[in-house]
């Protein structure tokens, strides 16, 4: 029985055959060839397209970031400066306040002292005046006493020397009193 007729038409190799899908040695070769092709393409694209553009983008990103950081730093510096300025202003204000307070205290002190001094002086003056008045008064009393004694003596003399009636007596007394009064007023 001859089954060899099965072979030729089925296994004849047309060179190079067109095909859609097959798994054989040639497929393996083509897989490797395709990998090499795409790897070459990858190398080219990485060198020509991807890396330069990415570098440009990265550079720009870092630059913008740097600018942002710089701006932030400057802002911080400005804020610091402002803070310092405000601190100084505050210090000045406080110092002013201190000085004013001290001056006020000194002024108050001195005024108090002056007032106290004045009061003391006034007191002494008043005291002295009072003492003077007292002394004056005493002296006036003494004078009066002596004057009265004098008057009494004079009156007694008059009583004694003259015969005296009632009228004369009154006249005399009044006369004397008037004299005395005039004396006292004159002094």
């Amino acid at each position, binding site marked *: 029985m001859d089954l060899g007729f099965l072979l030729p038409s089925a296994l004849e190799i047309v060179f190079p055959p067109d095909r859609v899908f097959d798994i054989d040695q040639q497929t393996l070769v*083509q897989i490797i060839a*395709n990998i090499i092709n*795409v790897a070459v*393409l990858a190398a080219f*694209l990485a*060198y020509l397209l991807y890396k*330069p553009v*990415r570098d440009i983008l990265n550079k720009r990103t870092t630059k913008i970031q740097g600018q942002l950081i710089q701006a932030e730093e400057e802002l911080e510096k400005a804020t610091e400066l402002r803070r310092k300025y405000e601190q100084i202003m505050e210090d000045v204000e406080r110092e002013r306040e201190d000085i004013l307070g001290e001056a006020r205290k000194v002024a108050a002190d001195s005024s108090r002292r002056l007032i106290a001094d004045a009061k003391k002086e006034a007191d002494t003056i008043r005291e002295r005046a009072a003492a003077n008045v007292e002394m004056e008064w005493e002296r006036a009393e003494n004078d009066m006493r002596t004057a009265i004694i004098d008057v009494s003596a004079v009156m007694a003399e008059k009583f004694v020397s003259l015969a005296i009636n009632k009228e004369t007596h009154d006249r005399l007394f009044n006369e004397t009193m008037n004299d005395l009064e005039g004396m006292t007023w004159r002094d």
Partner: protein
Amino acid sequence: MIDLEIKNYAVLRLFGIDIWITDTTVSTWIIMGVLIIFGIIVRIKSRKFKEVPKGFQNAVEAIVEVFESYLRTTIGDKLMFLGSWFFTLFLFILLSNLSGLLPMMRTPTADWSMTFGLALVTFILIQAMGVKYRKAGYIKDLFAPLPWWCPIPLFLPINLIGEVARPISLSFRLFGNMLAGLIMMSLIYALFPPFVTFVIPSALHAYFDLFSGVLQTYIFVTLSMTFISGAAAVAD
């Protein structure tokens, strides 16, 4: 008329190994050329980039910046050195998926060898980052639920299958979606007479190439990132 099959144009013989120069290879080279020329333009213009972006510079910077922030939220800061690989992956898959719109190009991602190649790199990165950042802990996790009294690592095969399944499902997801779109489009073009295929396919192109393509790109890149950062993350 869209050809479903991957055509072979030439055979390159290097070190005794045949390398077929196929539709995929040619499309890949075209996309590489477009991207590299774009990169050269950016490189030349980037010397004159100004502080305030405008026009072309703005567009390029927007692409890179959006991608970078997306990367940062998905894989975190410590894996950012993989950024250029993911960037390339994203741009390449996106352009590949969209290249289906051009009549002369066959989508390179509708070839399993391409998608599996990309997924294989993801697989290698998963293992490498796992070992790099978690050292022995990563290896230990492969034996994961291993009680102290159990001498046989019962779950090792399951874990290994899980690891191996990742690049396979990742690659077949992209490949399947792209090939499905291609099959649909080729069927439409083959079934209907030419005057019908003048306007109607544009809606299908919009779905299969634009919508599906962009979505699958996003899914592929996001899943790669998630897997890698998941492997590199310190276990809680």
